[in-house]
């Protein structure tokens, strides 16, 4: 294993210093190494951790594979990603989660941690074998029917209770299905003008309100996926003030984009939950700064060309996001490195109980880190993405920041802005 000396790097925005990486760990503040990286002007962050990624394997390898998604993640500065369960077959058994976990190991670009389905086949009827997934080689701790809401309140209560036995956590896709039948975009002025069926904010807020009460009642942990409305932020703020054990994530696109983009009817802007209003975007940014929203998660959702080059109503919802997440967050928050490290690395690792990630780059720590050039500007070109899919909403947009290098346990996965393998 090669050793690396990263010279003159600003660790999480601190004064320039040298960082020696050897034998998979941070070995000190200087010394001899096989290779030296001139990191003047670069910022080192603990490797980013994404609690919400769709890798599409098994089932839709034409849209993404564990390997291509892992490469996209590494290029985005990630060292760990959590793969959502809505694959085909669904990741609702120990067999499927172990397969995904093993594919992640084989790709070796990021740590791929499978998320298990809450219910069999994501059907919302019967609990999946959560315990079997937890004790499998994949060691699943997060369970989610993402893409679908665990809408049945009794089933949700049972799931929240059941996973306490192995310190699990339920990540809820908060969407009351009866309020969103046929929904195409945020319900409001723009949906009325465009004649697209509305997805009302209350469909998210009502489920979050119910679930924080359920979590409070049974004393369980709840994680809320992709919070998208100002009203949800208020529900979470009150729940946290009462001491409910709830955490929440926001996606980069909900921090930057609004429902006005649907006016083109280009389904590259179709996503679930939908893009909301400018007022929602403001509330989400503030909540991320305040900590009412704990983390940024990408909801990276690759889709094949034919699932997006069509009529809006027939398109699948979702956007790719791993390679643009940090630039988008930088554009929204500015160079607040401590905050970024907290929201994109340390806290997601802590929520997931993932050891070895999101740790300070102190001597002896696993060398999971990424180097960012904050002064670089990049025009997003879908053709350059490492993801197998091209459905980025940022095509042609100039975003700040460039990922120069990423290290997974001391091994570079990205060098000079290019994937190593």
């Amino acid at each position, binding site marked *: 294993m090669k050793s690396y000396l990263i010279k003159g790097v600003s660790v999480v925005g601190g004064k320039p210093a040298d960082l020696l990486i050897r034998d998979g760990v941070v070995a000190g503040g200087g010394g001899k190494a096989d290779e030296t990286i001139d990191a003047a002007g670069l910022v080192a962050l603990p490797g980013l951790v994404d609690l919400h990624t769709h890798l599409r394997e098994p089932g839709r390898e034409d849209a993404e594979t564990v390997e291509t998604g892992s490469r996209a993640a590494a290029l985005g500065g990630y060292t760990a990603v959590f793969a959502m369960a809505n694959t085909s077959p669904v990741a609702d058994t120990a067999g499927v989660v172990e397969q995904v976990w093993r594919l992640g190991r084989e790709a070796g670009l990021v740590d791929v941690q499978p998320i298990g389905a809450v219910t069999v086949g994501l059907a919302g009827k019967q609990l999946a074998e959560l315990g079997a997934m937890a004790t499998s080689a994949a060691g699943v701790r997060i369970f989610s029917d993402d893409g679908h809401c665990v809408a049945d309140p009794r089933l949700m209560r049972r799931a929240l209770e059941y996973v306490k036995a192995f310190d699990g956590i339920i990540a809820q896709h908060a969407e009351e299905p009866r309020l969103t039948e046929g929904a195409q975009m945020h319900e409001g002025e723009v*949906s*009325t003008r*465009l004649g697209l069926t509305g997805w009302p904010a209350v469909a998210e807020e009502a489920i979050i309100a119910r679930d924080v009460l359920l979590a409070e009642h049974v004393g369980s942990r709840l994680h809320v996926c992709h919070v998208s409305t100002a009203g949800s932020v208020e529900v979470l703020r009150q729940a946290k003030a009462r001491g409910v054990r709830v955490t929440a994530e926001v996606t980069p696109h909900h921090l930057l984009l609004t429902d006005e983009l649907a006016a083109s*009817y280009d389904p590259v802007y179709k996503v679930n939950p939908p893009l909301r209003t400018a007022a929602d975007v403001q509330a989400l940014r503030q909540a991320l700064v305040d900590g009412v929203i704990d983390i940024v998660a990408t909801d990276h959702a690759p889709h094949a060309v034919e699932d997006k080059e*069509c009529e809006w109503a027939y398109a699948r919802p979702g956007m790719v996001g791993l390679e643009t997440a940090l630039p988008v967050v930088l554009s929204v928050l500015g160079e607040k490195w401590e905050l970024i490290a907290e929201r994109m690395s340390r806290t997601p690792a802590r929520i997931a109980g993932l050891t070895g990630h999101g740790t300070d780059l102190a001597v002896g720590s696993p060398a999971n880190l990424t180097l960012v050039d904050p002064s670089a500007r990049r025009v997003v070109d879908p053709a350059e993405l490492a993801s197998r899919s091209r459905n980025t909403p940022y095509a042609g947009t100039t975003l700040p920041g460039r990922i120069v290098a990423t290290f997974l346990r001391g091994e570079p996965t990205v060098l000079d802005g290019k994937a190593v393998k």
Partner: protein
Amino acid sequence: MIKHLRSAADLDADTATLILDTAAEMAALAGREVKKLPTLRGRTVVNLFYEDSTRTRISFEAAAKRLSADVINFSAKGSSVSKGESLKDTALTLQAMGADAVVIRHPASGAPHRLASWVDGSVINAGDGTHEHPTQALLDAYTMRSRLGRIDGLKVAIVGDVLHSRVARSNVLLLTTLGAQVTLVGPPTLIPIDVAAALSPGTKVSYDLDSVLPATDVVMMLRVQTERMQDSYFPSAREYSRRYGLDAPRMRKLPEHAIVMHPGPMNRGMEIAPEVADSSRSTIVEQVANGVSARMAVLYLLLGGKA
């Protein structure tokens, strides 16, 4: 002149007025023995219909043929569309055939916008999902102008299932552009959220048809599908009809000069009583005739004819 007609919002007052004036000239042609103009000879108009709509398709077909265009009817049934060809592939096919204009009717809102990004020719929206139906708004405006002599200052009530109505959206946009005052009337469940902000700030909303009628010049009844009951938009056809249907006693609340419109097809006995539909105030049959003139004007102007 604009290239596409995807939304009534594509039309400013001058353009809309030019279309209506041109439609009047086209209507004069209908009284002649030979109803054909050579204007679009050698041009190809494709009617691309993903929904059954005999009246709209025939109207566009008659309009194009009276302008001597070659017309290709491409319907979803019995074509490659039913074999799962994507809209984009169909668009590329039409492009390769050299379509000068594509008239599209589609169940998905925004399909004409997508189509316009894939073909070089003009795209004319003949009804897309619950979005718009701009040529219907043009023929409605034409009908109002011929009956009442003007549009500016008219008070127009659009009554019924506004939420799912492409006719309503296009009419609000076009009529307010031309200076009319529009009031949307229906049960609150069928009035879309933030509708005034979405379409035109001056638009009013009322849940009480009886209070609106005495100060109305034009009442436009929208088709209400009885399936909406199953979705709890209203309790029953009978209650809907009682609260929002236009029957003879209600019609008598209208001013003497007021007209009754309906885009068709009607649910007689539901939103409109037979004696109203067949009364002298009703413009329903005229609307059909005016549809051909309005669509001739649109094709003529979009395909580069001189007014």
